[in-house]
């Protein structure tokens, strides 16, 4: 791709030193373990934390993928599995980052509170291409429900992914690709 840097292979769980080196705009290829969680799972997780319960899946050092996949067709670990809008998880994310969460994968804008929490945690917010659910499903090698099975698509799943294409949207220094990219191409002033 002319003008586009090559994809950087990144192993998951994310090494903290690697997380700090990644920069907004880096194209990456993620391989390893992610945990899926979206609206209902975040709410239930944080309600549990409020009651002093331990999280039902590991958070420290891990990466959460904001996704609710389609049911798995025969012979496949998951159905279509693209990212959902991350902003709805903004009220929960800073707390999880303080518990050691080091990576988030989703799409769309984050709040200023999340951006600051990413910096404080030395974490990374990755973007996956919204709407590319079939392509991303092809990168999922296995899927296993690990918590909140009753939530259906919103249950927490442990996915093993291989060569999952993503881009660094917010890096550990707080740079935000959405802001940078839009400024470069806007012609409305």
């Amino acid at each position: 791709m002319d003008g586009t840097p090559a994809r950087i292979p990144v192993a998951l769980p994310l090494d903290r030193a690697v997380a700090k080196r990644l920069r907004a705009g880096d194209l990456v290829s993620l391989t390893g373990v992610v945990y899926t969680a979206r609206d209902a799972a975040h709410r239930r997780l944080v309600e549990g934390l409020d009651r002093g319960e331990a999280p039902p899946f590991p958070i420290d050092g891990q990466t959460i993928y904001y996704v609710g996949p389609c049911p798995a067709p025969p012979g496949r670990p998951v159905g279509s599995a693209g990212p959902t809008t991350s902003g709805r998880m903004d009220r929960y994310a800073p707390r999880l980052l303080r518990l050691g969460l080091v990576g988030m994968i989703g799409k769309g804008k984050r709040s200023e509170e999340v951006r600051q929490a990413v910096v404080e945690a030395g974490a990374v917010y990755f973007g996956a291409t919204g709407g590319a659910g079939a392509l991303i499903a092809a990168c999922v090698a296995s899927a296993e429900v690990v918590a909140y099975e009753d939530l259906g698509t919103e249950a927490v799943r442990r996915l093993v992914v291989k060569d999952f294409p993503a881009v660094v949207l917010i890096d550990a220094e707080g740079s935000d690709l959405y802001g940078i990219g839009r400024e470069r191409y806007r012609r409305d002033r």
Partner: protein
Amino acid sequence: MREIDVGIVRRTVARLCIEANTVLPDDVRAALAAAAETEESPYGRAVLAELVENADLARRTGMAMCQDTGMAVVFLTVGQDVRFTGGSLAEAVDAGVADGYREGFLRASVVSDPLLRTNTGDNTPAVLHVEIVPGDRAEVVVAPKGFGSENMSALRLLSPSEGVEGVKRFVLDTVSAAGPNPCPPVVIGIGLGGTMEKAALLAKRALLQPVGSRNPAPHLAALEAELLEAVNRLGIGPAGLGGRTTALALRIEAYPTHIASLPVALNMGCHATRHAAATL
């Protein structure tokens, strides 16, 4: 009087749910492929190429192109000389949605109560719009609506004095505020006029129009072209990573309105502005 068994409606709705979620309409695919050639941003070109590849993979494998297989919006345009037999029409539509989502491995994304939020498990009920027209045919359109884009939609009841400038400002402010969230490149439906709910329905119907088509009224066609160009100057670009392709299409549907108001609704559609139709 022509009789149509509701079992046919059920089977048709089921088939269209699967088709709409796995086959990107040709006009949308062509628009994505064309934009992949002209987009200035390298990130944007990469995203557009991914979306074309994704659509082709979905069509080939029968996997949904997007995991948000939507809430099923069903438009039934029924000739007044049609009589439905064999049961409830609305129940047949819902049964068709349940069949289609189960058979197509499509996601159940509907909760039974907006506050209590328990998943209904089969993506029912549909949002059903029925219109009665002359004739003895029935047209079924299934338009599964994803909510990444639906959530970025908006409605305003402008004052007539705000005029076309008020409409333009509303559209650009809404698209600008949405930024990357609705999975650009987007398809934008605008409803002008009517009442509050009529404007929203016009905007939804505008999303069903073919990419590149224009409103037959010259002043609305000109406004569509002007607004599409203005939206594409915002710099949001494919996936919001910056670029020139923020919207693939923008369509306006209009209706007479009250002397006191200028209703305007914007329904945001993602690149997968899916719909499939059949005539019974």
